[in-house]
């Protein structure tokens, strides 16, 4: 899984962080913060390995 960017996204209403906007294998995706989600699990793995950084939400 090739993840080239990742940034937290806030809920427009609550202002809580609810997802990560990421480019995965060339496609823009909205990844929920659910450890059972394979994309989120891979993001966490790459962050832990030091190969990916998640930008703060705007």
């Amino acid at each position, binding site marked *: *899984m*090739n993840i080239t960017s990742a940034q937290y*996204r806030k*809920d*427009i*209403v609550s202002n809580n962080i*609810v*997802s990560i906007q990421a480019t*995965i*294998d060339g*496609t*823009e*995706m*909205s*990844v*929920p913060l*659910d450890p*059972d*989600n*394979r*994309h*989120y699990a891979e993001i966490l793995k790459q962050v832990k390995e030091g190969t990916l950084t998640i930008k703060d939400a705007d």
Partner: protein
Amino acid sequence: MSKAAELANLIGNINAGGGGVNRNVIINGAMKVAQRGTSSTGIGASGGFFTCDRWAIDVSGTDGRLTATQDSSAPSGFANSLKFDCTTADTSIASGEFLTIQHRIEGQNVQSFAKGTSDAKPFAVSFYVKGNASATYVAELYDNDNTRQISKTFNVTTDWTRVELTYPADTTGAFDDDNALSLYLIIWLHAGSTYTSGTLNSSSWASVTSANRAAGISSFFDSTDRTFFITGVQLEVGQNPTEFEHINNFGEELARCQRYYQVFTESGDTTFGNAVAYSGNVGYDGTQQIFPVEMRASPTRSTSGAWSVSDGLGNQFSITAYYGNNTKWGYQLGFGVSSGLTTGRFYNIRALSGSGSQLIFDSEL
């Protein structure tokens, strides 16, 4: 298989704790459902899900490329198969290379095998295969919870051949009873020495030794003449594979697949929600759109094609960003435009006709 042999196998499996209806833990084993499309070219640089639902391709390190197709060639009683067609050969196989087809199964769907207990049941695997020439490949069962595996070879010819494989029970290592990945069925089509240099572990489950996973296989990428077809895949409790259990109702099979992947495609100008503008360039749909099938976990959302919002007063704005929250039950869409929204006004979120726009939710394992 004769009816007498079929009956004997079924009785044998019932005695072993299997048999009956819903005995096949494979989803879309007949390759009926292909929500992602019926053909995908140039596969080989990275893995993923292409064409037939629930069937992943995992690949690493190879220069070989293939086209995957939901094909109409199939044995009697089937309408579809998954076809691989080698389009770029790779005859210089580095040690870590591999190409596999994978079916990934939730732990809560394989509890009937009683793996890791004194009552553990055997695994019966069957499928139909065909190729352009004779070849030998491997079908592996891989326990993701306990890092254990067992592999068996099978042969492909130029005619459709039914393959029947029986794997022994494993009293070591239980499958977790949850929605996470517990069991892989892996078809090895190409592998380097990392996976082939040992002795195939074929007689009993064991802790994983990479070199013993795919020893003895041919290489799918040895020639651009290579093809590989597979359908009618079944995995059931028992000591004998039984006749493939058809899911004749397409809607039922589709629903099984939608637990893992759902795609909504525009059909004419299609409205996917009604949103209120929070500012001049951001809006949000306050109503959750409910999925037709509860998904395995909160899905990843992606979109394709052209989308816009319109207010019914002739004002239309192209969407430039997407927001929102997905759960396993449904989704809420938020959107961004460059400017021009009226705060407090409602807007339709629309996929534009003819753009091939899709809204995609992925909860695959």
